[in-house]
């Protein structure tokens, strides 16, 4: 009972916030809606029994990515984040207009049709019930997977993150002309 409710709430939060992020005309609100969507996904992970992934989701996205995005919006000066009817160059406003949305929605329709084709096969192939779901502690299992089967990926991810850190620091560092 509770789990179904949790699922329903999370799903509604996820989808609703995502749609909110897509339609709002303020980038700041968009980021906050993204936050809601990500929290909802964390809830969905929780309903899937993936407690560690859920908390990681909250930790990285809520604590990190969203704040970073908000920082980036602030750093880029608050000029572009409210929708503009038109700017000097005659470009579409930063948060989109009806034409861009039309293109986006048409493409989305294509993707939906394509994916429905793919998903139906998968759903037909697998019954909608849990198979052998007894993972009392995902943390320990994930830990074992990380140090055994995926140890290379684990170590390489640290290198990847180092690369990201160094690269982003170099890119973002203020320069003379900047």
């Amino acid at each position, binding site marked *: 009972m509770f789990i179904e409710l949790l699922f329903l709430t999370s799903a509604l939060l996820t989808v609703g916030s995502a749609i909110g992020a897509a339609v709002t005309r303020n980038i700041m609100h968009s980021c906050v809606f993204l936050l809601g969507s990500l929290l909802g996904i964390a809830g969905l992970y929780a309903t899937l029994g993936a407690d560690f992934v859920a908390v990681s989701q909250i930790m990285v996205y809520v*604590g990190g990515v969203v704040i970073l995005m*908000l920082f980036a919006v602030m750093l880029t000066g608050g000029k572009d984040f409210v929708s503009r009817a038109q700017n000097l160059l005659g470009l579409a406003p930063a948060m989109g207009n009806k034409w861009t949305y039309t293109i986006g929605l048409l493409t989305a329709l294509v993707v939906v049709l394509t994916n429905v084709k793919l998903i139906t096969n998968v759903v037909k192939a697998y019954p909608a019930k849990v198979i052998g779901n007894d993972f009392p502690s995902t943390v320990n299992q994930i830990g074992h997977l990380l140090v055994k089967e995926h140890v290379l990926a684990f170590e390489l991810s640290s290198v990847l993150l180092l690369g990201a850190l160094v690269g982003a620091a170099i890119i973002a560092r203020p320069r003379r002309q900047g």
Partner: protein
Amino acid sequence: MNQTIVSYLSQYEFYDVLLNLFGNNQGLLAFAIYLIVALVVVGFCATVGGLGTYAERKISADLQARMGPNRVGPYGLLQFLADGVKMLTKEDIMPYTADKFLFYLAPLLALVGVFATLAVLPWSSGFMMADLNVGVFYLIAISSLVGLAVFLGGYASNSKWSMLGGMRGASQIISYEIPVTLSVLAITLLAGGMSFGTILSHQEGTIVNWFIFHNPFAFIAFFVYGIGAMAETNRAPFDLPEAESELVSGYHTEYTGLRFGFFALAEYIEVFVVCGVGTALFLGGGNLPFNISIDIIPTQFAQVVIFVTKTCLLYYVVIWARWTLPRLRVDQLMSVCWKYLTPIAIFNLVGCAIWLVMFNGKSLADLVFGSH
């Protein structure tokens, strides 16, 4: 999911009686128990938060050799209630330039973030609302909502003081999250798990089993955690985001009435939670410094009392620090975090790992007194 309050109660007979009362619907009963306990906990924490303001004033007055609040109630004890009523009756003002949606949302996020952390706070070995397998990790993660709330609050006000305070606050909170996380990681290493149940069960027995005395690195980690946590809750000497003399009032400059109250409440409860986590991680939680091994309900209550006492002692230290130490400059703040605390925390982590491998998981006391 390990030990929760429901599973603890279910070993007693009256649980079955209750179950019958609820028509054998375990979920409903669990919901009822949780709801009651949650309300109790929230009420308690709100009181503690309110009393926190009182204690703060009293202690600061004591330190500065003056009286402090003494009009409302005996020794001014009901001051916080008066404050609360005052907040309720204040006019609700919002700047016309503000981002209204976010202006409303920010205090809510702070409140949600802080309340959600209460779920895993280990009041005693049996009275835990939820003992997640990812307990500490969950706590760190969900409390980062507060940082976001600070930023959004500062942003939404569209006042320059607020904005500066919000940016500072957010960057300070996320910075100090790193040493705190690394210290917690060291404890996870020692306990072999992230759930509070596991962590507490490793600290049962005498005082030498507390993780703070497990090895020298854990001892240092406690202080790293303490400083980091203090900064994460924007407490002095790290109260840069709301520094009165620099930024008027920081990110909540434009907040009035109840919304300001929620921010304040969130902050005080967060201090309490942080102290409680420090207690649970390093100071043995509800365990006494000596060994008692009777498990009856009164023991659980005793543990709750012990836990709260220890937490309040830490709380006292936090307040004491606020009125003793001068505020840091913003560049000092950052270098303290990144150039001192973080390297030290990494050093502690490495030290703990090496200690574990070298001494096969034995604590210092085991080595000195010989283990069993």
